[in-house]
């Protein structure tokens, strides 16, 4: 899965709601969070493991299927005293990585919900 978030305009990026992949298991380890991605029904798919740490882990832990990218950017900006564009660029880059690793997907609230 590859993320399209970097190609979207800023407004659309900020409205996105990251959602966790349901087919993964998490285990706390000394370095951070060990994540195991279960294979999908696709025969070519294999089990994958990776360890999240640092800022990537902080952002992943915020993903609760409700928080928007906009809220994540605001939190990140406040936590690290960055400018809006600094925080926005970094959060979008991290989200892009999380999507490409298959840990999260992105949804957009429908017009009725927004």
């Amino acid at each position, binding site marked *: 899965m590859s993320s399209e978030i970097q190609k979207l305009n*800023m407004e659309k990026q*900020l409205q996105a709601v990251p959602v966790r992949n349901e087919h993964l298991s998490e285990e706390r380890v000394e370095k951070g969070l060990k994540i195991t991605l279960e294979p999908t029904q696709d025969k070519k798919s294999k089990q994958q493991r990776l360890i999240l740490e*640092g*800022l990537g882990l902080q952002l992943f832990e915020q993903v609760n299927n409700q928080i928007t990218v906009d809220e994540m950017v605001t939190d990140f900006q406040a936590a*690290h*005293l*960055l*400018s*809006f*564009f*600094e*925080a*926005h*660029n*970094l959060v979008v880059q991290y989200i892009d990585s999380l999507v490409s690793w298959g840990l999260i997907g992105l949804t957009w609230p429908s017009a009725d919900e927004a």
Partner: protein
Amino acid sequence: MEQLPQRIDWHYFSCRVSSDWEVTRYDLSNQRGKLNFSTRHGHAGSISWEKTSAEYKPESMMNDFMAKHLLAVKEAEKIEEAKLQLETFEGWLLGSWQEGYPLQASRYLENEGVTLKWTFLHCTNTELENLYKPVIKSFSENNGDRKKWCLWNFGLSLPAGFKPKEVNAIPASHSMKFTGPENAQAAINRWGLTSEILKHQTLEDFSIKQYNKMQIHISEIERTTFNGHEAVKLKIKKRGEKGFDKLIGRYWDGDAILWHNKELKRIYSLRQIKPEKTQPLDLEDLI
């Protein structure tokens, strides 16, 4: 009126803008250039500078701009009726048309032979009074023996002979490099995400890594404090850069100071590298 929080100093001007305005385009040339400001909602404004003659007529420049703008927003049919209303404000000539259309403000700097121009793409009466006039009013000339250089809330002041050579703005890592007489160099860096940077390394380790990346040799490093912040002072060397001397030139000496502002969660560094006979700058005096 409350002072706007963010300082901007570049070539010929100093001004203050809102804290959420970020520079998203910059030019290094002193002949002609522009700073664009954006917020999360889009373009906030821009200020441009251009070497012009005293006879330069800003009205025609403003009318041309308005015509181009109407073409860009696909309202070409309004070009004929778009007659600018002009007013003077704090030494600036303001040109506007109707609410919702651009406001331009122009000023000629006699001593520099430079025309400055602010452009705000969308202007209502409320925006003019509350947002744009305070920005325009905050202008002062950036001249004298020392010039200030400040973008993104960080900068320095340098003797007038120094000019910007390279500016890099990537998230959490900004730098501005200047060259002065005999190619002497002065530079300022700023890094963010300090909790991550200093999680597994000291300020000394970080400074060594950063300067190695810049192909700067460190001959001495010493822990110190700078304006109350934890800091390291360094004696450095780099090959002089003059023409092709980058590869074979002799080493120039320099010094640097790198400090951690815990309150702002930023690490800053100032450095200079200069030919032997050039007068050194007092780094602590540049901030």
